[in-house]
C-alpha cells in the first residue's frame, strides 16, 4: 500500500473508529451503498469492532466532497470526477479511492429523430453539471467526433433536463442512470450512444468508494470493514434476481424518501449499470486527460489516488 | 354658498360627544370668529366643515368645491421649500404654470417672507412656518376659507400687519372666512360675528354680531371683550365644578 501522503497531520493507526460517517446518494448508481445499508452488511461488518454507522444522503458530488474535506464524513460513494478533482486540487492529500462500486450506466439519449451521431451537428445537448463526469464525457466524445463547435453543451441539473427535453429546448442529454432511463421511458427519448461502447472492455467507473486520507491512516481496520461490506453488497447485487434487486432498491429508496420513480425506469436503469468492486484504476488517467483536453480542470499526478490494498484483502 | 350646520354631532371612537347638536348658518361672504376653551372642539368643527371628518349625527351643507383650510399646525410638506409648498396649492388649484412664480412671490411677500422662498420648512422659525401655511391657504383661492388659529405663533407687529392684509383681502374678494382664535380682541377686530363654543360637549354658547361702530369705538370693543371673557370664564368654572364633583 502506498504510504499516507500527509494532509491533516498524519496519524498512526488508532484501531477501529468509534463511528464511521458514510455519505452516498439516493440513486441507482449507488446501489451497493443502498444494499449494504439496507441489508445490514455495513452494520454487521462494523459492529464486530463496535463501530457505529452514520449515513448522510447527498444530492450532488461537490457537496459530498465539501463534507469529506471538512471532516463531516469519513467516506463516501462518489462519481470519479469529483474524486479526481478533489485529489488533484489538494495536491494529492485529500482522499483515496478505496474500492469500486458501479460501472457503466451513462448514455447519450436523444430525440427519436436523431438516429446517427452525425445528425448531432447543430443540436443542443445537456449534461447534469459543468465539469462533472458526464459533462467531460460528452465534451470529449464530441471532440473525438469533430463536433465540438457544432454542438452546444448545456449543463443543467438532473431535474431540469427532463423539463428542457419535454419542451423541446434540448435535443438530448448525456446522463447517468436512472436519469437516462427516465428520459427513455417517460419522455420518449432513445439511447443514441451507450458510454460503455466507448471504453475498452466496455467498462468505465460510475461510482467509486472514497475515504479521507486521514481516516484511512487512523482507522485502516474500519476502512477494511467498509470495503468488505461493499464487496458483499456487490456480490449480492450480482447474484440476486432482477425482481429481488428491484424490490430491494425501491424499498431502500423509499426509506430515504426518494422512491418516486416508476419500476420501469429503475429496472431499465439497473440493466445499464453493472456492479464491480475494482475501481478500474486504469481509466482515471484517461478521464483526467479527457477533462484537460476539453479545458476543464488540470493535469496532475494520480500517484497514490487508488489504494487497492483493502480491495485485495476483501477479495481474499 | 355659505355653510349650513344642522344639529351636527361628532364623537371620536372612545370619546363622548365632542360636538353636540350644533346648528349654525353662515352666510356667503361672512367673516366669522370662533372662540372657545382649549379642547372644546373648534378644530374638530373646522374639520367637519372641510369634509375631513363626517358628523356622527345631523348634517351640514358646504360648497361642493370644498374649502381652503389653514391647519392649526402648519402642516408644510418637509421635502418642499416654502415657495414649493405654496406652488403645490396653486398647481392643485389649477393655476397655469406661467402665472405661478409671480403669484408665489406675491403671496410670500404678503406674509413678509419674500426672502425665504427657497428655505425648507426645517430651516424656518415657528412663526415663519405658520406664515407659509397662511400663504398656502390663500393660494387655494376658494370661496370658503377656514383658519385654525392662524396668528398664534406671530408677534404683535406681524400679527397687526397680517390682520390688515386679511381684512382687505376679505373686503376685495368677499370670501366666507371662518377662523378660530384664542384672542378675543383679534376676534372683535376682524370678524363680523363671533361664535362662542362651550366645552364637553361643544355647543354654541353665545353669538355676537360685531358692527363697524363697535369695532371703531375702543371703549365698546373693550367692553365686549370683557364680556366675552367673562362668559368664557363662567363656562370654564362651571366645567371645573362638574369635573371635580
Amino acid at each position, binding site marked *: 500500500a502506498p504510504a499516507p501522503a500527509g494532509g491533516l497531520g498524519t496519524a498512526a493507526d488508532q484501531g477501529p473508529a468509534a463511528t464511521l460517517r458514510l455519505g452516498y446518494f439516493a440513486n441507482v448508481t449507488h446501489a451497493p451503498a443502498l444494499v449494504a445499508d439496507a441489508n445490514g452488511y455495513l452494520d454487521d461488518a462494523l459492529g464486530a469492532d463496535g463501530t457505529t454507522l452514520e449515513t448522510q444522503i447527498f*444530492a450532488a458530488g461537490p*457537496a459530498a466532497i465539501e*463534507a469529506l474535506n471538512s471532516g463531516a464524513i469519513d467516506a463516501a460513494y462518489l462519481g470519479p470526477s469529483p474524486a479526481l478533482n478533489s485529489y488533484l486540487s489538494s495536491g494529492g492529500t485529500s482522499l483515496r479511492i478505496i474500492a469500486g462500486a458501479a460501472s457503466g450506466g451513462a448514455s447519450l439519449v436523444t430525440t427519436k429523430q436523431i438516429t446517427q451521431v452525425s445528425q448531432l451537428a447543430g443540436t443542443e445537448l445537456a449534461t447534469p453539471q459543468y465539469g462533472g463526469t458526464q459533462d467531460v464525457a460528452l465534451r470529449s466524445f464530441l471532440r473525438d467526433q469533430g463536433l465540438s463547435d457544432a454542438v452546444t453543451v448545456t449543463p443543467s441539473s438532473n431535474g431540469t433536463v*427532463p423539463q428542457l427535453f419535454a419542451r423541446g429546448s434540448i435535443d438530448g442529454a448525456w446522463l447517468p442512470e436512472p436519469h437516462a432511463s427516465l428520459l427513455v421511458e417517460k419522455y420518449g427519448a432513445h439511447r443514441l450512444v451507450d458510454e460503455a461502447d466507448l471504453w475498452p472492455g466496455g467498462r468505465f467507473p460510475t461510482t467509486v468508494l472514497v475515504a479521507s486520507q486521514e481516516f484511512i491512516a487512523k482507522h485502516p481496520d474500519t476502512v477494511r470493514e467498509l470495503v468488505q461490506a461493499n464487496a458483499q453488497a456487490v456480490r449480492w447485487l450480482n447474484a440476486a434476481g432482477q425482481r429481488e434487486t428491484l424490490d430491494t432498491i425501491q424499498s431502500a429508496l423509499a426509506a430515504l424518501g426518494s422512491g418516486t420513480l416508476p419500476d420501469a425506469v429503475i429496472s431499465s436503469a439497473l440493466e445499464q449499470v453493472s456492479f464491480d468492486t475494482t475501481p478500474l484504476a486504469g481509466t482515471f488517467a484517461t478521464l483526467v486527460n479527457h477533462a484537460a483536453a476539453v479545458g476543464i480542470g488540470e493535469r496532475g499526478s494520480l500517484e497514490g489516488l487508488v489504494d487497492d490494498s483493502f480491495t485485495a484483502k476483501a477479495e481474499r | *354658498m355659505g355653510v349650513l350646520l344642522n344639529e351636527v354631532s361628532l364623537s371620536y371612537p372612545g370619546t363622548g360627544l365632542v360636538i353636540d347638536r350644533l346648528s349654525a348658518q353662515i352666510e356667503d361672504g361672512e367673516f366669522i370668529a370662533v372662540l372657545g376653551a382649549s379642547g372644546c372642539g373648534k378644530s374638530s368643527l373646522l374639520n367637519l366643515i372641510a369634509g375631513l371628518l*363626517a358628523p356622527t349625527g345631523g348634517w351640514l351643507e*358646504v360648497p361642493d368645491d370644498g374649502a381652503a383650510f389653514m391647519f392649526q399646525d402648519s402642516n408644510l410638506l418637509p421635502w418642499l421649500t416654502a415657495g414649493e409648498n405654496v406652488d403645490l396649492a396653486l398647481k392643485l388649484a389649477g393655476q397655469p404654470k406661467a402665472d405661478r412664480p409671480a403669484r408665489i412671490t406675491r403671496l410670500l411677500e404678503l406674509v413678509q417672507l419674500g426672502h425665504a422662498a427657497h428655505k425648507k420648512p426645517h430651516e424656518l422659525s415657528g412663526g415663519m412656518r405658520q406664515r407659509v401655511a397662511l400663504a398656502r391657504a390663500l393660494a387655494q383661492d376658494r370661496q370658503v376659507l377656514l383658519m385654525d388659529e392662524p396668528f398664534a405663533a406671530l408677534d404683535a407687529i406681524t400679527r397687526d400687519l397680517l390682520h390688515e392684509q386679511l381684512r382687505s383681502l376679505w373686503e376685495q374678494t368677499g370670501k366666507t372666512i371662518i377662523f378660530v382664535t384664542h384672542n378675543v380682541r383679534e376676534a372683535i377686530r376682524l370678524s363680523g360675528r363671533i361664535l362662542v363654543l362651550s366645552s364637553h360637549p361643544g355647543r354654541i354658547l353665545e353669538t355676537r354680531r360685531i358692527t363697524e361702530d363697535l369695532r371703531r369705538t375702543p371703549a365698546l370693543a373693550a367692553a365686549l371683550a370683557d364680556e366675552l371673557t367673562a362668559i368664557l370664564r363662567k363656562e370654564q368654572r362651571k366645567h371645573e365644578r362638574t369635573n371635580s364633583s
Partner: protein
Amino acid sequence: MSAPTQARIRPAVPAALALRRRGRADAVIAPIITLIVLVSLWQIAAWASPLREDLFPGPAAVAAKLPELLADGSLLSAVGTSLFRALSGFAIAVLIATPAALLLAHLPLLRKGLGPLVSAMQVLPSIAWVPAAIILFGLSDATIYTVLLLGAIPSIINGLLSGIDMIPAQYSALSRVLGAGKRQHILSVQLPAALPGYVAGLRQGWAFAWRSLMAAELIAVGGSLALGVGSLLQRGRDLADLPLVMLVILVILLVGVLIELLCFAPLERKLLRDRGMTRTGENHA
C-alpha cells in the same frame, strides 16, 4: 366656470360601522376568496395548457400527492424542522443584529467602515457561504444556522439603521434635554421611534432567513441533519417530480401567509395605531 353648488354631508357612522364590521370579515374572507380564485385559474390553466400533465400538474394532481406525504409523516416533520430552524435562527439573528445596528448607528466611523460591507453582504447569495460553513462546522445544524444567520443579520441591521435614520431630529433634542443617558436614549426614544421602520426590516429579514434556510437545507439530507422543506424541494426537482415541487411551494406559501397574518400584520397594525396612523386599506379604529 359654472357656479359651484352646495354639497350636503351626512353622517358616515352607520356606513362606517358597517364598513368596520365588513372590514373584520374581509380580513378572513378576502384571502380565502383570493385562494379560491387562484386555484380555479390554476385548474383552468392546467386544462387549457398543451403541456403534459407531469410537466404542468393541476391542483388535483398536486392534491393527490398530499396523502402519500402526509402518511409517511415526511411532509409534516420537514415543515416542523424547517419552521423550528427558521424561527429560532431568526430570533438569534434579531438578538445579534439589533445591538449591532445600534453600535453602527452610534459609532460614525464604524458605520462608515462597515456600513457598505453590511449592505454588500445582503447581496451575497447564501450558497456562497455553504463551503466555508461546512469546512468550519461540518454537516451539523451549526452549518445551517450559520448560513441562515449570515443571510438574515445584514438585512435586519439595514432595516433598523434606516428606521433610526428616519427618526425626526427633534426626538434626539428632547432626549438630550430630558438628560437621558445613551442607554436610556436608545431604550426610551430611539428604539420605539424606529420601530415602524424596524418591523419593515424584520419582515424582510424574515424573508432572507427563510430563503437562506432553504439554500442551506439543499446541501445535505438524512443522517445527522433532519429533513427540511428545502431538502424536500430539492428532491422534487432532482426527480423531476413537479407535483412534489408544487406541493412544497404551496406549503412554503402557506407558512409565509400564516407568519404574515399572525405576526407581522398585527404587529404593524398595533404600532401604527399607537401612533395614530392606519395601514392603508384598514378602517380607522
